[in-house]
């Protein structure tokens, strides 16, 4: 083994490279507070690996994206797990990015000479959010489609934003080009940009070293110095392991990432962004009409400007926390704002019954559409999965064969009986009063014997009783009769009327083969 390494080393200088990578002294000693950068690097590499794995089954087109994602989620072995890790990985990255930033701000590590570390870090933070935004759309499910509509919609409302919006989404509305563009951004542009910034960030970090606690003086720092390898790296890897364990736990607990029903431009889905964008979502609610630019551009722009300018805002002589009140207060205020807005958004949704009902509907649709996808999605893709539903097939058959004459829910012909609310109370009442109307049996070739019962023959209260009786008869024929579907007392009256006074039984039979020859 040693000889093999010698052989390689002679030709590559790998020992010197490894040494240079690992031999770094950590003044003041290894500390847990330094782990966040390493954890983020680990998460980024893991996201890249998971992303490549997902790309081996995913197809970025408006017709295939949802079907291929459902295939990964519900069919391919381990697909849900890897997709879940990738999905929750982005949430964990956002959390660790914030922790990293808090640590840097508390340590005063944005100050001279580390301004470029700070700026490259902020840019990478922005890229992490851009990853989340572009990745959210890729499954082309209801949630991704509608939430991203809001984001690109915001883009279109700001000055000069419309051309930008059309470039990003590839035209004036969502379609194949939207998904190919988001895909190209998500898997090529953003990872390459992040990789380049990360290289620069690590180079700058190695140039300036860690920012040790301000409380330690020069000689204390020297005395406590430990090597990066293995002391700090052990802490780093231990923190990665904890992060990895949380990620696996999250993934198992949620059975991976959500996948809602395929994107349906005709539906009214209750769109919500991912949790770490909820504060922006909440902010939008407070500014109406032309004022909305305050929430979409001015406030976020001011926050970003403040963060970028932080090395200049902070003019204190010391790195000690006490002497940097203004800078820390500013960052603290931003944090509090984000937390409060996020909490408000969550509380509002939790109390909003319409939202909860919409969410329940969405989850039901998600489950059903994914069941239907199991036999394969028709080539029109996405919402065409509903065609696998026998109910849908029945509706299609009706449209093709019945709707020329029959009307249902306002659509179709009027020559034959209307089938809207067929056999409900109003329908039954109507058919007794005017059986020969085209809305009932007027347009049919048979069923011409029944004559209308006017209010004189059959007063309204008696008609109600008879209708109730008919409902009772229907319920009793069901497999599991529902006693609350009709008024029992009224039905009793109706039963008496049926046989005696009104003489329905002269023509209609209740049980097959008995009494007259009319319908039911």
């Amino acid at each position, binding site marked *: 083994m040693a000889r093999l390494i010698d052989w390689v080393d002679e030709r590559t200088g790998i020992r010197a490279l490894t040494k240079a990578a690992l031999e770094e002294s950590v003044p003041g000693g290894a500390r847990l507070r330094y782990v966040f950068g390493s954890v983020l690097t680990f998460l980024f590499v893991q996201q890249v690996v998971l992303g490549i794995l997902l790309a081996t089954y995913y197809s970025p087109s408006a017709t295939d994206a949802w079907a*291929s994602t459902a295939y990964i989620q519900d069919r391919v072995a*381990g697909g849900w797990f890897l997709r879940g890790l990738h999905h929750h990985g982005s949430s964990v990255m956002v959390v660790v990015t914030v922790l990293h930033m808090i640590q840097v701000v508390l340590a005063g590590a944005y100050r001279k000479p580390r301004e470029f570390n700070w700026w490259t870090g902020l840019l990478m933070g922005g890229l992490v959010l851009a990853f989340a935004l572009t990745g959210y759309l890729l499954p082309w499910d209801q949630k991704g489609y509608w939430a991203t509509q809001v984001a690109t919609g915001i883009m279109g409302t700001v000055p000069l934003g419309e051309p930008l919006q059309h470039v990003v989404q590839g035209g004036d509305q969502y379609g194949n080009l939207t998904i190919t563009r988001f895909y190209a951004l998500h898997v090529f542009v953003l990872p390459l940009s992040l990789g380049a910034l990360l290289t620069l960030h690590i180079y700058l970090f190695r140039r300036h070293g860690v920012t040790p606690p301000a409380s330690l003086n020069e000689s204390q720092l020297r005395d406590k110095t430990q090597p990066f390898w293995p002391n700090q790296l052990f802490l780093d890897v231990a923190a990665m392991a904890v992060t*990895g364990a949380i990620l696996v736990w999250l993934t198992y607990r949620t059975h991976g990432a959500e996948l809602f029903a395929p994107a349906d431009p005709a539906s009214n889905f209750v769109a919500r962004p991912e949790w770490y964008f909820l504060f922006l979502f909440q902010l939008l609610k407070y500014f109406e009409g032309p004022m909305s630019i305050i929430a979409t551009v001015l406030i976020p722009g001011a926050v970003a400007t403040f963060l970028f300018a932080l090395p200049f805002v902070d003019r204190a002589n010391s790195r000690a926390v006490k002497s940097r009140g203004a800078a820390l207060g500013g960052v603290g205020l931003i944090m509090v704002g984000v937390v409060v807005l996020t909490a408000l958004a969550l509380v509002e949704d939790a109390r909003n019954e319409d939202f909860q009902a919409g969410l329940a509907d969405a989850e039901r649709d998600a489950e059903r559409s994914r069941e239907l996808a199991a036999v394969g999605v028709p080539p029109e893709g996405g919402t065409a999965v509903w065609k696998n539903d026998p109910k849908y097939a029945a509706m299609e058959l009706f449209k093709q064969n019945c709707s020329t004459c029959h009307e249902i829910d306002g659509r179709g012909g009027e020559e034959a009986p209307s089938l809207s609310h067929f056999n409900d109370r109003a329908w039954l009442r109507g058919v007794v009063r005017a059986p020969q109307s085209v809305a009932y049996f007027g347009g049919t070739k048979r069923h011409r014997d029944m004559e209308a019962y006017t209010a004189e023959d059959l007063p309204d209260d008696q008609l109600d009783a008879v209708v109730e009786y008919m409902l009772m008869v229907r319920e009793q024929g069901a497999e599991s009769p529902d006693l609350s579907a009709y008024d029992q007392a009224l039905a009793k009256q109706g039963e008496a009327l049926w046989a005696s006074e009104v003489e329905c039984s002269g023509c209609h039979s209740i049980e097959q083969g008995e009494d007259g020859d009319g319908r039911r």
Partner: protein
Amino acid sequence: MSDEHEQPRTPASSPPTPASAADGRRTFLKVGVGALGAGLAAVVVAPALRYSLWPLADGVKVTSGGEDFVIVGNRRQFGADPIKVDIYADRVDAWNRVANVKIGSAWVVEREGQLHAFSSVCPHLGCAVDWSAEHGKFKCPCHRSAFGRDGTAEEGPAPRPLDALDVEQRDGELVAIRFERFKQGTEDKVKI
């Protein structure tokens, strides 16, 4: 990170007892880095292998189509000169289910009153063979394999005759073919 147990690090001049305690701690940290790192990698690598190799797993069929006989034409259309027919079938392709799409083509020829069908897929490496009326042979456009009217390999690198497909006549009139695919490049005709 690579494991570097063998690399000498402690200078020989350090006092014996504290150095060995520090060495033990260092070894622990190094082994810890290796073990935790390997564990972390395994979280992704193990499911990734199962996931990537899933198309090979037992009972998994990524694509379908070609299990059934497909009607390709009327008995009267076919004669001693081979005629190419396209095979249409319902096909499942991973997440898609498509009705009535082309899944391949076959050559149909009558010999001694019997209909024969050959897959147009060359048994050598899968190019589509064509009928050359001039030479009276099936010719592969890729590597010069040629096959007789009865499918036998006559020239070139093809290791076996053209693959015969099952033919069925229905109601005396309609001709149906079962389009199957076979392993390429082998002497034996093995269904895949």
